[in-house]
């Protein structure tokens, strides 16, 4: 039991991950999808960061004392990169949402699908 | 003295030259067609010379795709026989085609002549192929090059027929035939045609019938029921195409492949010792009888001839399935005799169409009296198909029966006899109606002598005479296969 509780950070990660993933799949609103995606990604960031923690370790800045225990800095560096990538993804996503709002006047999935079907019918009509 | 290699190049190259010539001379129809006939004659001469000389084991590798796969040509007696058939009938068919196309004013004659020559090239390559890969490559080229011929008219009917034609032939070949070929490749490690076969001892006999099935049904061009539908469907094509499909190139390429695979891949001994081809005997017998019965019920002349072809192809597959040397020789001979007979019948059907625009048998009562030469040739060819001496067809049927006796297949004897009777009925009806039935008043058949143009009539007379010739010089054409 203690070992399970000791891993509370993983449970947190899993809960966040499922929350985010659920929002991505189940929400029709594109902004909500993006938020879900962000939560999903953030859970992964936390997975990495928490694994870099070494018990009783301090921040990985050289102290000059050879007995100092440091946390692992590499996951932090990786996640710094991943955050940058995540921000870029979010930016592209919202840019797309703005363009979708401009052209379709909605950002609801099901309404857009209807409008797309109309477009399909219209282009078929044009071709014939 | 020509080198064998030169002859291989000639047989493969001359039809290609002719097709190029057709393209280059498209502005001058007479030159265009003249050169095709001349090159055709040259091809025929080469084919005769090569056949008379016989195979000497020359092998020619044109292209090595990978170390174990190559496009190569190794003539052997059976292949030379097929090359002879295709080579000799091609110039005749060309003369006939030219006259037919001009007689009925078909469009796109250049395209037609071009693909006709390409189809012959593919047939020659199939005949001389030295391994299964080469055979498969040109088998597909033959299919695709005859597609524009079948759909030549461009109507909805033609498109529909083209779909059936291509669908069955390509699907069967890429699903079953290629499967079989790769299977052989994996099992035997080679694809070369070798006397006595390459599979003996390398495969568990239990699997042999399945492998044989992949080939029997993969070679859609052999029109074994139930894969025969493309053949009647392709009847929408102009008659010279039907002649090409039925007698010269396509179906003959199919049954030739079946025979070649049975003899040079499986090996006759291996087939008999494993009994792997027993089931094929039954299927082929069924195909023979069923197609004959369908033919009886068709009143469109070309459709009836098409089903007759399906039935006759069954003979050749049967010969391969019986897997005795005598039956295989008979099947090989039947390729030649049926080719001569069936091309004559189609030429006649085309001549009737060119002269009077008739295609239904019921309208042809009394027509024989207006077209005595055409009907005379038709009668001769019909007798040859039925198997009456002194015509070529008698020998091949006789040898097949002998083969059946060898293997104690009494039922096959019965099938052959019944089928001969059915042949007699459905082909005889046409001849009898033509010569003896009174012409319906006011019908086209009512009138004086009116033959098709001479360029249509002469080729069909020649092919009818070849049928007779085949009877008397049959020694020349009998190949012997041992093992």
């Amino acid at each position: 039991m203690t070992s399970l509780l000791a891993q509370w950070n993983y449970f947190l990660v899993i809960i966040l991950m499922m929350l985010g993933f659920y929002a991505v799949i189940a929400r029709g609103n594109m902004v909500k999808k993006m938020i879900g995606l962000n939560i999903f990604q953030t859970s992964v960031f936390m997975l990495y960061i928490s694994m870099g923690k070494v018990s009783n370790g301090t921040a990985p800045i050289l102290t000059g004392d050879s007995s100092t225990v440091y946390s692992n800095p590499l996951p932090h560096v990786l996640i710094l990169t991943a955050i940058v990538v995540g921000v870029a993804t979010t930016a592209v996503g919202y840019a797309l949402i703005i363009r979708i709002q401009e052209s379709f006047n909605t950002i609801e999935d099901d309404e857009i699908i209807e409008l797309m079907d109309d477009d399909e019918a219209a282009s078929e009509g044009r071709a014939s | 003295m020509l080198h064998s290699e030169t002859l291989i190049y000639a047989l493969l190259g001359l039809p290609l030259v002719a097709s190029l010539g057709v393209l280059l001379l498209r502005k001058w129809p007479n030159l265009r067609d003249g050169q095709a006939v001349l090159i055709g004659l040259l091809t025929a001469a080469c084919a005769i010379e090569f056949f008379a000389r016989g195979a000497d084991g020359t092998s020619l590798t044109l292209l090595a795709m990978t170390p174990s796969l190559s496009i190569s040509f190794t003539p052997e007696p059976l292949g030379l026989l097929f090359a002879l058939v295709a080579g000799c009938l091609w110039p005749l068919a060309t003369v006939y085609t030219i006259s037919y196309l001009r007689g009925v004013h078909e469009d796109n004659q250049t395209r037609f002549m071009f693909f006709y020559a390409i189809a012959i090239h593919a047939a020659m390559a199939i005949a001389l192929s030295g391994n299964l890969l080469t055979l498969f490559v040109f088998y597909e080229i033959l299919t695709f090059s005859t597609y524009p011929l079948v759909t030549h008219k461009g109507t909805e009917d033609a498109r529909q027929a083209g779909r059936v034609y291509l669908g069955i032939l390509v699907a069967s070949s890429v699903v079953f035939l290629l499967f079989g070929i790769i299977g052989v490749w994996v099992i035997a490690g080679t694809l070369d045609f070798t006397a006595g076969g390459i599979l003996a001892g390398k495969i568990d006999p239990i699997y042999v019938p399945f492998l044989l099935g992949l080939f029997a049904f993969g070679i859609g061009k052999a029109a074994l029921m139930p894969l025969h539908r493309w053949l009647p469907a392709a009847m929408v094509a102009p008659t010279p195409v039907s002649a090409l499909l039925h007698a010269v190139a396509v179906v003959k390429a199919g049954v030739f492949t079946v025979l070649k695979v049975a003899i040079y891949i499986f090996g006759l001994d291996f087939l008999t010792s494993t009994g792997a081809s027993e089931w094929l005997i039954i299927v082929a017998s069924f195909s023979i009888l069923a197609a004959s019965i369908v033919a009886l019920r068709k009143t469109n002349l070309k459709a009836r001839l098409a089903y007759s072809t399906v039935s006759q192809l069954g003979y050749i597959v049967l010969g391969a399935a019986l897997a005795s040397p005598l039956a295989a020789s008979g099947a090989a001979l039947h390729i030649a005799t049926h080719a001569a007979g069936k091309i004559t019948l189609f030429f006649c059907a085309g001549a009737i169409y060119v002269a009077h625009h008739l295609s239904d048998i019921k309208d042809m009562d009394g027509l024989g009296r207006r077209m005595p030469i055409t009907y005379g040739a038709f009668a001769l060819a019909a007798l040859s198909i039925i198997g009456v001496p002194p015509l070529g067809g008698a020998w091949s049927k006789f040898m097949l029966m002998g083969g059946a006796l060898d293997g104690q297949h009494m039922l096959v004897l019965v099938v052959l006899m019944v089928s001969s009777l059915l042949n007699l009925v459905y082909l005889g009806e046409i001849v009898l109606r033509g010569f003896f039935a009174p012409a319906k008043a006011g019908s086209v058949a009512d009138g004086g002598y009116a033959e098709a143009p001479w360029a249509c009539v002469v080729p069909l007379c020649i092919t009818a005479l070849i049928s007779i010739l085949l009877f008397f010089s049959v020694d020349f054409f009998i190949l012997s296969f041992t093992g």
Partner: protein
Amino acid sequence: MMHHLPILQVIVPLLAAPLIALLRGREIAWLATFIVTGVTFVISLLLYYQVSESGARLVYDLGGWAAPLGIVYVIDAASALVLPIVTGIGFVVTLAARHLVTAEIDQRDHALFFTAWLLTIAGMLGQVTTGDAFNIFVFLEISSLSAYALVAMGAGRDRRALPAAFNYLILGTVGATFYVIGLGLLYMLTGTLNLDDLAVRLADIEQTRAAYMAMAFIALGLFLKMALFPLHFWLVPAYSFAPSAVAALMAATATKVSVYVLVRLMFGVFGIGFVGISEGLGTVLLTLGIIGAFVGTLAAIIETDLKKLFAQSSIAQLGYMAIGIGIMTPAGLAAAFIHLFNHALMKGALFLAIGVIGAQTGRATMRTIEGAGRQIPMTMTAILFGGLALIGVPLTAGFISKLYLIRALLESDFWVLAGLTFVSSALALAYVWKIVEAAWLKPRPEGAPDLYETPMMWLPAWLLVIATIGFGIFASPLINGAVQAAAVFFGGQS
């Protein structure tokens, strides 16, 4: 100079991309892109030559830091085979982009278009070259993010490109995140991200549940990226609403690179000895592969929009690659590499030829190509040859693919699967022939706009068609390359 080729392969397009964004004038932006893709193509050929000549693998330490501390770029027989596909296709498609982009993209956006274009290519090259698992993720995102933007640029002609790009973004990001999760688990287990080092350390540790989960997450993420059935739903809208040039580039290369990364991770890191690979992955790939082959082919048969039709066919073709990998033998993996290469050529040719039509009519549908065989014969003939290659007609590259795939299946006694593969590939005839009938056997409808073509328009497609036929006839170099590439991942076994 020759020593720096591995890094130049990636860095040249990566650095050129922002510079091109600064260029004004559409001709100059295109020309610069064309030159850069040409240079990357030459570099990849040199790399291939070096690797195949020496038989050794080239390892390049970034900044002089050796593995496992530093990031290394590794060129071995497998990556050397995939690089020329990406760069070669990129080069030819850029050649075609000249007229396609002029026709389809607003002139103000050209410089930005080509910036994103080079970034996509650079991202793909990075994924293939790098020897570091996290680096793969970074390059994956570089190529994906720019690809989302490129797909969205189709909005100038059809607004449906925007939702297509958005869905692509969502699923692409989910896939990439799955990959990162798997990687995190691997890192926890081994403490390294270098691919070679990972392989060594994984072999030592126990095959725990965490290792299986890592494998499953990574595989799932990459299945999404390579559009393996049933994770393929983003692909068809993304390809069909993207600008023609983008569709051609992505159809020919993007999914292929993901296939390569999958092979690299599954075989190169976990290795065939890993129970999850030998027991689980093979069955999954074979099953999904054959279902995907049928689903894609059948969907293509009923499709009337040519881009969508060939996008569906891509699902089927990816299925064949999955089958090749799933056989789990050197022969199967070699067959997958052969098909990966050949399919890139065929699909590139097809999408470029369709682009010629699409650039003129907005969309290439069965209706718009009716009777087109006489008006644009070179373009339609390119489609015919591409289609024949897809069916696997002899003397085309598709035939070689099929030959080796089936042989690999039969050698491992998958007779039924081989039969099913044959049936599904024969069904390809139906959708290819639909096009042939429409283009050649039907007359041009009254009032349909006249189509035209110039050599500059059909030449790029024909370059790939010629390559398709060339590799169908002279197949030895490719087969040798693929066998060597497969040997990279099975070397430890024998």
